[in-house]
């Protein structure tokens, strides 16, 4: 094997090795690949063709800006006295709502209106379908807490042994704690601040603290396991997918002062929360930078009710997929067909992205192929850049000198890319120039090349023999360069003894 050919093979092998290494590093979770994966995921989430319809039971009772404005006359600024919430809770229970989930934290007594708290307590005691939120504080503060998990029945799922103390912000009313319909509302955004994943429960020693969506779904009969592994959230197709009614309308209907625009609360799963900007309940999600917290909670409850969550491939599987993509890219390169590589450079990553995108629509398994696609794209691009650099270096820029010799070779289009490498290798070794017929004239011979600048006939013949040994599929012919080099070249290629010929060649 020619040493330059060997060098070229060594280079390509090294390039492949580098990309195998990159695949290993990126698949096992470098910050860079995390960014690629999350931005791809977000982009695909926002442009899905379809997604599960929102559960028709879900209804958001919205403390919106209108509610704040219209209730200010009666109750002043938020927080309103809690008899307002008591009225809505009592009304919802009486109307036959399946659940009323408070996306409001009752962490402190209302000293200005203790009677409002009293009314809310009475409403909670009569309620059997209300759910309440608890904030899980950072675990480093567990040691600063005197609470143990068993103090909060309903929130904690017992495990073997004791779980130790736990830092929480609890509702202050005993009546709420006694409902046992509690769940945490704490979420963990990714490092870029975007919320993408959620766990149905959080581990606490051998115990588990269930989330509010889990508590609601379990209360409504879903057979969900209190899985502590975070999973990617299955989003609806767009934000604000759940119907909303203003709190002020629901409250006025409950108070009997409004009779139109009263929502039918029967069989509804009501999420009572706030979208008013002044209450700051927003998070960044893949769908929207300022996604309202209550809409996110409704999404999570919907997912819990339908046991909907993405199974995400493990890093090991991700690595296997990246290596498979790389192997496919390498095979295409080895095949050596120019059009294949050109097509594969964009086609292979696009295919992988398409598979990823299709899997997103299953809403069950997300095949995260962003890294394999990126690896394949990078590898194929690197190969193409390498060859284009070589082509730029060796290609003929002016007519060769008369009296020198040239070798014109024709090969199958299937080996065009490989053949080109070989021509470049030879040119590099001999400091000859190269002319591609495709670029030299209108004649299109997909795999025809000429080596020019050869000193004499013997050298040219020797080169033909060398090429014949390494590339038996290639047919070559030597000729002397004259003043009319192009004509000379075309005549040589038009020789019927050469196996391949352009249909349109007209020397």
């Amino acid at each position: 094997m020619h040493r330059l050919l060997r060098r070229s093979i060594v280079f390509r092998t090294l390039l492949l090795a580098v990309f195998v290494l990159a695949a290993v590093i990126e698949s096992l979770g470098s910050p860079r690949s995390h960014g690629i994966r999350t931005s791809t995921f977000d982009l695909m989430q926002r442009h899905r063709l379809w997604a599960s319809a929102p559960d028709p039971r879900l209804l958001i009772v919205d403390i919106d800006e209108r509610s704040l404005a219209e209730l200010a006359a009666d109750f002043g600024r938020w927080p309103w006295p809690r008899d307002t919430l008591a009225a809505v809770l009592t009304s919802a229970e009486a109307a036959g709502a399946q659940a009323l989930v408070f996306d409001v934290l009752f962490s402190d007594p209302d000293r200005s209106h203790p009677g409002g708290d009293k009314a809310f307590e009475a409403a909670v005691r009569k309620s059997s379908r209300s759910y309440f939120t608890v904030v899980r504080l950072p675990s480093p503060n567990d040691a600063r807490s005197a609470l143990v998990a068993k103090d909060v029945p309903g929130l904690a799922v017992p495990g073997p042994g004791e779980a130790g103390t736990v830092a929480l912000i609890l509702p202050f009313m005993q009546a709420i704690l006694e409902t046992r319909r509690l769940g945490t509302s704490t979420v963990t955004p990714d490092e870029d601040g975007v919320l993408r994943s959620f766990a149905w429960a959080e581990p606490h020693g051998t115990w588990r603290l269930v989330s509010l969506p889990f508590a609601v779904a379990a209360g409504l009969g879903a057979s969900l396991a209190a899985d502590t592994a975070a999973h990617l959230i299955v989003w609806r197709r767009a934000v604000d997918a759940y119907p909303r009614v203003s709190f002020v309308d629901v409250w006025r209907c409950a108070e009997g002062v409004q009779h139109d625009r009263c929502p039918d609360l029967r069989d509804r799963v009501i999420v009572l929360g706030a979208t008013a900007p002044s209450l700051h309940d927003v998070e960044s999600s893949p769908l929207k930078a300022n996604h309202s917290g209550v809409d996110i909670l409704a999404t999570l409850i919907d997912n819990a009710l339908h046991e909907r969550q993405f199974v995400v491939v493990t890093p090991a599987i991700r690595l296997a997929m990246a290596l498979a993509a790389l192997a496919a890219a390498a095979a295409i390169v080895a095949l050596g067909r120019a059009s294949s590589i050109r097509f594969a450079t964009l086609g292979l990553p696009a295919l992988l992205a398409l598979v990823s995108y299709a899997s997103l629509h299953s809403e069950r398994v997300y095949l995260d192929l962003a890294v394999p696609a990126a690896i394949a794209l990078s590898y194929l691009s690197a190969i193409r850049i390498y060859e284009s650099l070589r082509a730029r270096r060796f290609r003929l820029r002016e007519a060769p000198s008369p009296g020198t010799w040239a070798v014109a070779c024709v090969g199958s289009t299937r080996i065009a890319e490989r053949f080109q490498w070989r021509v470049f290798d030879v040119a590099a070794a001999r400091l000859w120039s190269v002319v591609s017929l495709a670029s030299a004239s209108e004649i299109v011979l997909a795999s025809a090349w000429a080596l020019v600048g050869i000193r004499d006939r013997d050298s040219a013949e020797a080169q033909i023999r060398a090429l014949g040994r390494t590339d038996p599929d290639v047919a070559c012919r030597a000729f002397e360069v004259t003043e009319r080099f192009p004509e000379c070249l075309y005549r040589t290629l038009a020789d019927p003894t050469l196996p391949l010929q352009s249909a349109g060649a007209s020397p």
Partner: protein
Amino acid sequence: MIRICLESLVGTVVLAAAAATSAQEVRLLESADVRSQASPAAPVVASWRTGHRVQLVELRGGWAQVRDGNTTAWLRASTLETAPAGYGAAAALESGRRAPGNEVVSLGVRTYPAPRMNRHALIVGVGTYEADPARKVEPLPGVKHDMLNALVVARYLQVPIENTTLVKDEAATRDGVAAALSELSARMNPGDRVFIYWAGHGSRSLDAAEGACVESLVPFDLKDVSNRDFAAWVKPIGDKADKMLVMFDACHSAGVADASRSLGTLRPRSAASADACRIPSNVRTRSFSSAVRDVGLSAADVVHVASARSDEVSFEDSATGGLATTALRDCLGGDAIDKDGSGAVTMTEVAACVQAKVDLKMAPFPRLVASHLTLSGNASFVPALFAAPAQLSAGSTSAAPVGVVGIDDVVQEIYQQRDAKWTVQAVSSRNRVKIGDLLPDWSVTSERDGYLYVVMVGSDRQSLYLLFPNDLDQGNRMAAQRTVTIPRPPWALRAAGPAGNDEILVIVTDGPRDLSALAGTKTVGFTKPLTDAAGRARLQRVFATNARAGATCTSAAGCSDAFGAAVLTVQEDD
């Protein structure tokens, strides 16, 4: 002096309420119409005043059925002085909530912002006074409400319960208040934020050093505290504090003006002076803000709110407390509006809200003119980012972009939140640049270690960027007295026009800021234009709060919300 932690106070209220409930007798907290049915649409059968006692029969929805003699009727439960029977036993345990570093992201809304350990409050309420035949001072029954209202204000200001000191009546002597301020100074760390509140009578007293009568506050033992005295007491606090908000709900007009008499439940908050200061000819105005300046505190770090001008009478409602304090509680709780759309509510906007409420409260009394809230010191101080951040039209449910409104105010407002004692120098290599050329370098030096952030308002007044740190350059830790020059490789900025001024705000913070709140809005490595109301509000919130977790922030250093700042201007030319 007594230091009462909020739990004790709540416990007292609860015990009292529980006793009342067991007897089924409850009191009205405010005047209310009672109705035949549990609905506002039902006919009114009676109107009962604050303090009216009734028997509680039943609670249904938001309504309470009550009986008074032969009358059985319904009223809103929140008008009654009764409390839930059961405060959760588990909730009464220490839950880790008071530990530092409770920074978590949770869905849902709550009633108060999370407390921060670097906030402190001292609440002084003088509702009763020592008997002195020479100087009769009327009691102020509204002061007990003020103390509760001030506690709520402290909660809005994110002051933890254990950092709140209450000094009331007999404990609120001249020496008692001085000792409480001294104790507050001793327990706080540099960069902490402080709220000091006084409710009670104001007056005028002879200040020997001034050689004239000056405004004063009347403590329990009637040994008046002049503004000069008070300024000297708070000096050590001001030397440490990042910002100090001081409010006096009292007035000093007695002896100068003809102090008004009580009118219904309204009472004046001004006590007659016991000395020659009753004669108006020797009166000198010595405001608290000037006294603060005299002791060497920067006006940028102190905000003083007084319920009335020096020649006005301020009032309390004996059933609800001082008009100004009640209004402040409601305004900080969300009634104040960000009128300039800068993303946060400043003290100027809060004061406007308070004044409107006081005016409304005084409207039924045409004989009286409402007192005027006076605001001195740093009027751009943003006391509570919990309050309404954006100017929104009624019915709007989203923070819609408001164009150029308020974009300059954002830079100025953030700048005004700086600790003026913290010197940050920022120098631009050039003050003018041609459009299309690279922007000049900015050299930044801070007198303290910190974290560097740079915000820029573009000359188009449409773009507001967080320039640094950015995706290309994250290393924003800087050492004291070491000059940092930015932009620096691998990033640079090109003047993109139009002709006009770029405003560059350079900030050096004590602790790192959580930039993830700005996430999702990045473009080309920089946080993209934050020109909508929500974006501006997020930016203000980011710089107002140290993101450092408590577990790594147990000492004073690097734990405060304080920051130093400087503003640069670069002219872009055609």
